[in-house]
């Protein structure tokens, strides 16, 4: 319970940073998607169920304050959390490369989905512009943010896990 509360607080902190600080570090209108990092990270740290939990909350928050239909980001974030939990199930917890691969893949899929929902459905494809000016830069920027935030978040997560008396992901797997 205490651990879940910590996750909720972390989601809020990431959200506030996303809305207040990210606008200042945007490069030609593109900024990192910080909220997307959370389901990917927590899926890796704590298994698929953890990823789903964080994904649905972060996604609803992103939807409520973003411009898209309620449920779109939640749907995608849940997928990323589950994907991260499942694909990285047998990856060492000390690993750095695989979660980063999954971060950039998730960001890429997320931006593609946004492009699809907001533009392709309205018959404005313009793939060249969107890939080179929106989707790829945002994915790479998100990856950069992920690299910067991965170790702080992991360190904090281990502390909180120890404080709440939770084991690693293997423990979680037995629970669920």
């Amino acid at each position, binding site marked *: 319970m205490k651990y879940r509360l910590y996750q909720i607080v972390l989601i*809020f902190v990431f*959200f*506030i940073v*996303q*809305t*207040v600080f*990210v*606008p200042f570090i*945007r490069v*030609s*209108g*593109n*900024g990192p*998607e910080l*909220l997307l990092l959370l389901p990917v990270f927590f899926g890796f740290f704590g*298994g*698929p*169920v953890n990823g*789903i939990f964080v*994904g*649905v909350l972060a*996604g*609803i*928050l*992103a*939807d*409520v*304050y*973003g*411009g*898209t*239909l*309620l*449920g*779109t980001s*939640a*749907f995608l974030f*849940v*997928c990323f959390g*589950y994907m991260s*939990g*499942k694909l990285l199930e047998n990856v060492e917890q000390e690993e750095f490369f695989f979660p980063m691969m999954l971060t950039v893949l998730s960001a890429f899929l997320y*931006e593609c989905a*946004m492009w699809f929902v*907001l*533009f392709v459905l309205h018959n404005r494809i*313009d793939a060249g*512009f969107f890939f080179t*000016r*929106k989707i790829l830069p*945002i994915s790479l920027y998100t990856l950069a943010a992920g690299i910067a935030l991965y170790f702080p978040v992991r360190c904090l997560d281990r502390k909180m896990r120890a404080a709440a008396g939770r084991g690693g992901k293997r423990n979680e797997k037995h629970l*669920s």
Partner: protein
Amino acid sequence: MKQRLKAFFTPVRIFALTLFACIILALISIFSDTVSQALRTGLDTVIVPMQKGINSLGGVFYDHAVNLATREELEQQVTDLTGRIEDLQEENQRLAQDAYELSRLRRLYALDEQYASWPKTAARVIGSGSDNWDMEFTIDKGSNDGMRVDMNVIAGNGLVGIITEVYPNRSIVRSIIEDNSYVSGMLSSTGQICSVQGDITLMESGQIRVTDFSADTDVKAGDEIVTSNISDKYLQGILIGTVRDISADGSQITKSGTITPAADFENLQEVLVITTTKADLTGDGS
């Protein structure tokens, strides 16, 4: 029972159920706003105070940074501005005479009310859309401060956007450079009507698209575009920007081009909300 419940909730089933719940949520919010409205109002009580606090903290640092601007820059500005004051004083005298004449003529035409300067209230920008795909932003005044949907928002002397959603303590403003924004504009000199549309491919360069000038319109770079008299959402005569380039379309029936907006969207911190809506003036709507 507890054991069986645990056995049922495997990760795959939880995953499937959550996805299903997301789809249901999306379907509900297509047909009604109640869920998202309730969620937003609830979350606002937590988030708006936090955003405001962090913003004022940021403001302190920003002001400090501005104070450190170099002395030479400021001196250069002083000389520039002194020159401009002289120009403006001269212009002002001329305009004062015009204004006097104008008010006399307006009285004749009984147009006072429509052209009177609108009541405005200042608001602070406390957040921008949390994603990369739109240019919506949040201001710190909501229905408790008398904000209503469709109120026009300006900054400096240019149009910024329009309020699209109102919550108790904050409102969402859709800016005119956003992709799905549409404003009916006109050439301030001749009153020729045109459409002003945001475009994501131009957002980066800070431009907006202007279309639908009829081909015989005499329009050139540097001309001012203001909101038109036929717009049903925007008050008449608010400056949108100046024409940057214009060319005839392939059909030779219309002309289109780009506008540089008068408002500075890069550094939007404080905006003015015009508390009169077009619906108030025309008398339909509450």
